[in-house]
């Protein structure tokens, strides 16, 4: 075992564990620093299905809203998973712990082992060169890492529909989880209809197992994906953390919130963390890899190079939510078994105001808590429940994402009166954002109408900046940072999470963040003579 100083990785989310694996497997000492303590406990293995819970099995309330009643808080501005899958403490305190002051930006982050992957929607798509922005990082460099990560986390989906190449081919892919009758009906209709050049519909690609891997079991279609999977069929970096912790050259320091980092390659890097009791712990490392979440990592890196009062962009993918109705499905039964994450995805080409594409995802509405379905309806709650009772068998909830060019948020590191550096995060959309949303909405209405599905009037609502939790492009590779995410004036520090992605396209970026972290970890291991 090497006696060299460890590689310190700040954060144990998807990026942190993805970089840790190649380094640890190469025999290098690795120290993962985690602000949280214990991982979220997995849901009970005996939890009934959503259909059974809705039909009043004992303890149904404990499963649906949690013993701590966390499910009763208002999280209607965010993804339903933030309410159903985790207690309030999951996201509370992230901004304060990382000294981020957000204005007009719905910052979502967590100080929990495994990070936000605990509630991941698990949508996986690979980026091509256009997605990556044609600079700093190219798809060819990421290809081996995509493969390694896909094998590790397990991805299921279809390789022979119109969306297969969009999500990426050539990756190890398990068979898709069966579609719900409603999604299947929509896909069948799409297959029978004349294809349009600007619209493609197909199966979603998800980090969800249809075949078990290790202790993770395959999807049982209990429809409770929004409440976290009791079989760990949905990927969660916390599972990887357990595997890493079992390796002799890996240590995990928990309950340590890193507030400052520093160091250059000519000396050791360091990370200074605080415990809840106020004590300060300084960890030295050969390299400090930042994977604390894009915005928190950016704050640490900016402070390390003392870049105060100079704004940096914070790119996110503006999103909208909408509901579509398949009238042909009305009156049908709601299936007792189903898959609760994204069933179908679509690509809609955009021409106005900028060329590009939007990515859309479709979920069975019956997989989502009634509280989240009615949250924005102007009806009475009782009336909304009655309306839903009629519509649910034909109702799908959609999310559509625009490329990050339509966001205009920025962050500035400022020294506050308390003597600490805070990141002043300001949310905004680009001036073209409203036009792009209108264009997107028109496209969605038109294409789904052709498939016999109606976008429900008044159902389209735009997320506030940041609420979609696709953050990146803050200190892009090849521009603000080196090819391995190293900071120019503090090159013992590498950023390995979304902060260094050169671009945030409409596609979900988690798989790419993991692949890039794996790439950086692998490159560092090679640099130090470890295969």
């Amino acid at each position, binding site marked *: 075992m090497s006696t060299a100083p460890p590689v310190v990785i700040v954060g144990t989310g998807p990026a942190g564990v993805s970089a840790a694996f190649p380094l640890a497997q190469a025999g290098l000492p690795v120290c993962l620093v985690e602000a949280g303590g214990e991982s979220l406990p997995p849901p009970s293995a005996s939890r009934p299905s959503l259909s059974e819970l*809705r*039909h009043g099995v004992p303890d149904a309330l404990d499963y649906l809203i949690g013993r701590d009643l966390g499910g009763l808080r208002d999280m209607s501005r965010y993804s339903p998973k933030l309410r159903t899958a985790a207690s309030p403490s999951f996201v509370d305190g992230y901004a304060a712990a990382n000294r981020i002051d957000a204005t007009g930006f719905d910052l979502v982050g967590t100080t929990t082992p495994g990070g936000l992957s605990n509630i991941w929607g698990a949508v996986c798509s690979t980026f091509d060169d256009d997605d990556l922005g044609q600079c700093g990082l190219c798809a060819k460099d990421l290809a081996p890492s995509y493969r390694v990560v896909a094998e590790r986390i397990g991805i299921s989906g279809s390789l022979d529909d119109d969306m297969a190449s969009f999500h990426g081919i050539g990756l190890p892919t398990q068979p898709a989880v069966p579609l719900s009758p409603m999604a299947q009906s929509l896909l069948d209709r799409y297959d029978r209809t004349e294809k349009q050049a600007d619209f493609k519909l197909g199966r979603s690609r998800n980090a969800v197992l249809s075949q078990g891997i290790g202790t993770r079991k395959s999807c049982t279609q209990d429809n409770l994906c929004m409440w976290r999977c009791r079989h760990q069929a949905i990927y969660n970096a916390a599972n990887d953390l357990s595997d890493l912790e079992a390796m002799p050259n890996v240590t995990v320091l928990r309950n340590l919130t890193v507030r400052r980092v520093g160091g250059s390659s000519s000396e050791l890097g360091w990370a200074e963390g605080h415990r809840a009791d106020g004590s300060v712990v300084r960890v030295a490392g050969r390299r400090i890899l930042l994977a604390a979440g894009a915005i928190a990592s950016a704050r640490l890196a900016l402070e390390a190079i003392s870049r105060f009062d100079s704004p940096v962009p914070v790119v996110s993918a503006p999103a909208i939510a909408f509901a579509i109705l398949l009238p042909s499905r009305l*009156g049908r039964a709601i299936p*007792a078994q189903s898959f609760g994450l994204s069933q179908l995805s679509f690509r809609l080409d955009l021409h106005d105001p900028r060329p590009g594409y939007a990515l859309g995802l479709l979920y069975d509405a019956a997989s989502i808590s*009634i509280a989240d379905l009615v949250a924005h309806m102007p009806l*009475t*709650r009782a*009336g909304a429940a009655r*309306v839903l009772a009629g519509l649910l068998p034909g109702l799908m909830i959609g999310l559509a994402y625009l490329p990050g060019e339509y966001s205009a948020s920025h962050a500035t590191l400022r020294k506050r009166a308390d003597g600490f550096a805070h990141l002043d995060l300001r949310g905004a959309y680009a001036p073209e954002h409203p036009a792009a949303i209108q264009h997107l909405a028109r496209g969605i209405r038109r294409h789904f109408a052709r498939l016999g599905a109606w976008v429900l009037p008044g159902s389209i609502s735009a997320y506030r900046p940041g609420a979609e939790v696709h953050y990146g492009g803050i200190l892009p590779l090849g521009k603000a940072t080196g090819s391995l995410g190293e900071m120019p004036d503090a090159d013992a520090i590498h950023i390995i999470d979304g902060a260094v992605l050169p671009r945030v396209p409409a596609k979900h970026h988690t798989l790419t963040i993991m692949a890039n972290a794996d790439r950086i970890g692998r490159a560092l291991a090679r640099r130090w003579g470890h295969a």
Partner: protein
Amino acid sequence: MTRPRDHLLITGANGYVGARLLSMALADGYDVTALSRTRPIAASRWFRWSLTDPVPTEAFGSGTTPITAILHIAHQWESDRPEDEDENLAGSRALLAAARVAGIKRFVLASSVSARDGALNRYGRVKWRLTQELNGPEELAARIGMVYGGPRLGQWGAMCALAGKLPVLPMVGANKGVQPIHVDDVCRGLLRMALIPHPDRPVYGLAAPCPIPFGHWLKLLARHIHGSSLVILSLPLSLVLLAVRIVNRLPLPIRVAEERVMGLVGLPIIETAADLTALGLAPRPLEPALASEFGRRRRLEEARAALACVSGARPRPSQIAAYCRGIERHANGTTLPMPRLAHRYPPLLRLFEPPFGSLDLGNWRGRLHMALTIAECSLGDTVFPTTPVSRFRVGLCLLSTIITECLSLPVRMILGRRPK
């Protein structure tokens, strides 16, 4: 610690204050002999006695321990006799005389803040006259303030009714100070008066040291007990008396004694801080006491109505408990003002649900949303059909719901405004 051997005799032991006092004395481990018209629920040595009966002298002896003190709580409100021949005067005098004959020195008379010479109401005048007859060194009077809490009996029950049944209350002297005190604090004070070794004053005030305006007090009761707001309409005394007489003649489930109104009008303010200190008594603060006493019941009422409103079915106990815990956890335990009719007809709450805005628990939109979140576990086939349903039925249901929603929208926009 040895068990107290004091033996208390309590009259009116089945009344509003007396029953509470009896329970407290027994819980404290004292021997108790109860005198009342009907047998008290709490187990004790009991003799039947009303103020018009001869005093049962056997009650003063033949017990396990000699009587240490008499707590004279009994009072007869209704009387057909002239004031000089009031049953309370005769009965109390007889009791006091019997006590003196039996050698029982400590005699505590439950009097009133309103007891004073020339009081506007007969109760105040009678209590004043009785107080004047206490001349032994250990013959004490307790000038008790406006008693609240516990079962809604006596004056307390009348106040609860006044504060809750009428949305607009005509009254005189809305700014007149009253000194409310919780019934348990009164009982604790009476017990201490009965047992304090060397009483240094003949009269102890058992009333809140800081008076509050009576109108404010009624508004507090309306909010905490009934969850409603109350508008006080200041009127001359003559008009109030007229309104009370009219209300009493109408077939309404309330009766307001004119005598009590007069008692309120003529209520003086008394200094009680020193007396309370002498007794080592710290009356509980008003608002926390009311919130603690009525908060849980109101949360239960709101939970039942809100859950029934969104689900159309009788809620389960687990759902009611979750709703109450939800309020406690996410809304500091506060309930929203709820129309009384909504208790019987929960769908009425829909009219108070704002069509837009926040889902926080400060309005009915947030509350009913929370109720629906909880109700999801029992909606079953009502919302999540597991068997096919005819499309005609679906269409009909949607149509009727949309019509109902459209019709109720203007009302919701008015009634759903955020409560202050």
